[in-house]
């Protein structure tokens, strides 16, 4: 393409472009696992289970650029969106366990899909191994400014006085916001009707217009509207208060112990990948977390950096799987 000849110092987009033009780049990654001792000695394909352009892809791209610089091989971002991430994982299943193909794992992929897509053809715990947690994004619980409540307690009282009349919006069935709100309903015993939208944007629109009263999403989408006063943040789903909203209590502080909902992203590899490769990749990721570019990106979205060991990530995933199993079953959550 035109932009290929146009400059030479953008290893990543050029690779993307190659792949995009005819999968030339991809053919190279699936050959064999011989050269394990010298890992990595060829480009690493990083499957991201989202369409290009979303916040998570941007985070992946930033980290990939830094990893490429540090390790001297290209990390090629391969966006494989849709289907709740199932097609991305099925694609992973077709690649050898040699550490040259990794996938960006997240709450939906690891903790929710196993429950709602039983026929996906893989087992996230048996066929995949965790590498490291990359980031946690706080989820917030907000109401439209005209809803006369100031904290979680008054919200619950308000909802209980108006049974079945209040609604909450989400970015879709089984989206992080849907799960977070169902978890809150479960913890507090209040009932509000779920109205799913196609993406955060349309959902946010109806919340801003006041047609829908409640909403839960990550910090990047909601912060500007909380600051402008259009939405009121009642509580954060994090374990501790977040620096950008120091006056907002956590759900746990508001009287619901152990409540925690965050959106998280990490790296996962095929089961059978040599442990030394996993460890090396994790250590490189931990180093990346300290690079100024990644730190700036994280700060802008008030994301909490990861970089911990594979075992820590495994324990984290196990905890999340247990947490969401209850929510998915009791909240009768289905894909979408």
């Amino acid at each position, binding site marked *: 393409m035109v932009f290929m000849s146009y400059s030479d110092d953008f290893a990543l987009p050029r690779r993307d472009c190659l792949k995009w033009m005819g999968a030339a780049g991809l053919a190279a990654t699936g050959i064999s696992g011989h050269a394990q001792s010298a890992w990595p000695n060829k480009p690493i394909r990083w499957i991201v289970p989202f369409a290009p352009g979303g916040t998570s892809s941007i985070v992946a791209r930033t980290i990939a650029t830094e990893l490429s610089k540090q390790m001297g091989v290209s990390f090629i971002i391969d966006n494989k969106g849709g289907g709740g991430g199932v097609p991305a994982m099925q694609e992973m299943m077709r690649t050898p366990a040699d550490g040259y193909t990794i996938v960006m794992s997240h709450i939906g992929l690891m903790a929710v899909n196993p429950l709602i897509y039983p026929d996906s053809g893989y087992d996230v715990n048996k066929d995949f191994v965790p590498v490291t947690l990359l980031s946690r994004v706080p989820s917030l619980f907000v109401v439209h400014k005209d809803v006369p409540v100031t904290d979680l307690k008054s919200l619950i009282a308000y909802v209980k006085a108006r049974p079945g009349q209040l609604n909450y919006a989400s970015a879709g069935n089984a989206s992080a916001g849907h799960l977070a709100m169902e978890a809150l309903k479960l913890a507090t015993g209040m009932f509000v009707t779920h109205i799913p939208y196609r993406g955060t944007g349309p959902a946010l629109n109806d919340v801003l*217009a006041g047609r829908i009263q409640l909403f839960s999403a990550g910090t990047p989408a909601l912060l500007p509207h909380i600051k402008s006063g259009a939405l009121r943040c009642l509580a954060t789903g994090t374990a501790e208060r977040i620096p950008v909203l120091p006056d907002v209590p956590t759900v746990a502080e508001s009287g619901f112990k152990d409540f925690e909902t965050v959106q998280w992203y990490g790296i996962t590899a095929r089961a059978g990948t040599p442990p030394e490769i996993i460890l090396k990749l994790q250590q490189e990721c931990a180093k990346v977390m300290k690079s100024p570019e990644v730190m700036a990106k994280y700060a802008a979205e008030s994301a909490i950096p990861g970089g911990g060991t594979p075992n820590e990530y495994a324990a984290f995933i196990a905890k999340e799987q247990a947490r969401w199993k209850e929510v998915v079953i009791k909240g009768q959550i289905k894909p979408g």
Partner: protein
Amino acid sequence: MSSFDALMGGFANALQPVTLMWGFVGCFIGTLVGVLPGIGPALTIALLLPLTYHVPATSMFVMFAGIYYGAAYGGSTTSILIKTPGEASSMMTALEGNKMARNGRAGQALATAAIGSFVAGTIGTLALTFFAPMVVDAALAFGPAEYFSLMMVSVVAVSAVLGNSMLRGLIALTVGALLGLVGIDLQTGQARFTFGQAALLDGIEVTVAAVGIFAVGEALYLAWQGRETKTGEVMKVSGSLWMSKSDWSRSWKPWLRGAFYGFPIGAMPAGGAELPTLLSYYTEKKLSPNPEEFGNGAIEGVAGPEAANNAAAAGVLMPLLTLGIPTSATAAIMLSAFEGYGIQTGPQLFSSQGSLVWTLIASLYIGNIILLVLNLPLVGLWVKLLKIPPPWLYAGIIVISTAGVYGAGNSVFNVGLLFAFGLMGYAMRRFDFPAAPLIVGLILAPMAEQSMRQALTISQGEWSTFFTRPLSGSLMAVAALLLIVPPLWKQWRSRTSR
């Protein structure tokens, strides 16, 4: 007028020779990649985004505006010349513009599309400059009930593309609507008609269907025709390439009306660019003194929808800049581009980061002008494409369509789907079913279903919500009038003329 002064400041920032050079690069790349079917502006910008981080902010904005409008415009070229819509919103252009090209008027079709895009893009950017807060309030007033009523107006507007036989047209529409229901039901999470295919969970991509039915179907039809009669259609290019006086006078009103549809609907979070092009086409057909020309190459049918398409592209920026809400894939990618430059979109944007934003808006004007300057001379070049013998041209179309569809989603499944739709398009062409209603059904059905059910959940099951909400009720009334009045009017006229 502080907006005006601020805008002039923005122009001062953006009008530097180096910046303009980037603008040309952006328009060129945008148009080129926009020409590939299946690859819309979203993917183009996503791919070019990392590259833009290496140029200064103002240059990046101008380049970016060029890519944005260029990619939105690029689709019209292939739609007109080879009936291959780059994205769903170019469908009307493919329908009418390609007929013009077959009548030897490809030059005029390309010109009216380019100038119409420029006019509408400018109107859209002007509206963005001066009316942003008002339009945002209006867009916020559009909830699920209002969207559903707007869909009802659109369903009536489909009558403009039903073709000669209403029955065949309605069959195509229904098949399209059924195909539109494939995938996970948004409200309940139930998978419908997916046959266990994970690739179908998100539904059928409109672009794949449109490219398959229009481009691949057309190529197959041509191949069949060549075999049957030994006379493939050879497209001719005759006469002047430039628009005549009557072309101008037939184009300017559709441009303005198209912009009037495109901008507000584009500004709505769930509006998109497809509805305004359909509504514009319908309006032009109804207002034309010669409605029988529509479907056979009426210039109004290119001018209006193409203007609507580009005005919608400007409209999309509205909720993005003022509310920080990305309403399309393209907008979501742009949002991350803005964030890369430290622009926090949202309610405080204009007050907190004024100069950068005004530079961006000035860049949009400049990008629009560069696009016109770049594209009008290219009309002659593009038209030469039609001199390629049809077998080669159509073989090329199939190659480009396949590569484009594969590239858009890295999905082999979608390539298979493309050819399935190609066969379907061939059969429809062969047995004289119109293709446009099918694609419209595919677009409208899921949107209408979703907004209807959202509205009903909000109203707790009260159907009256569609009629008692003022905006929604008005739209329903418009739909009803459009359905009832024209036949009555026709009857009345035939009676009085007797």
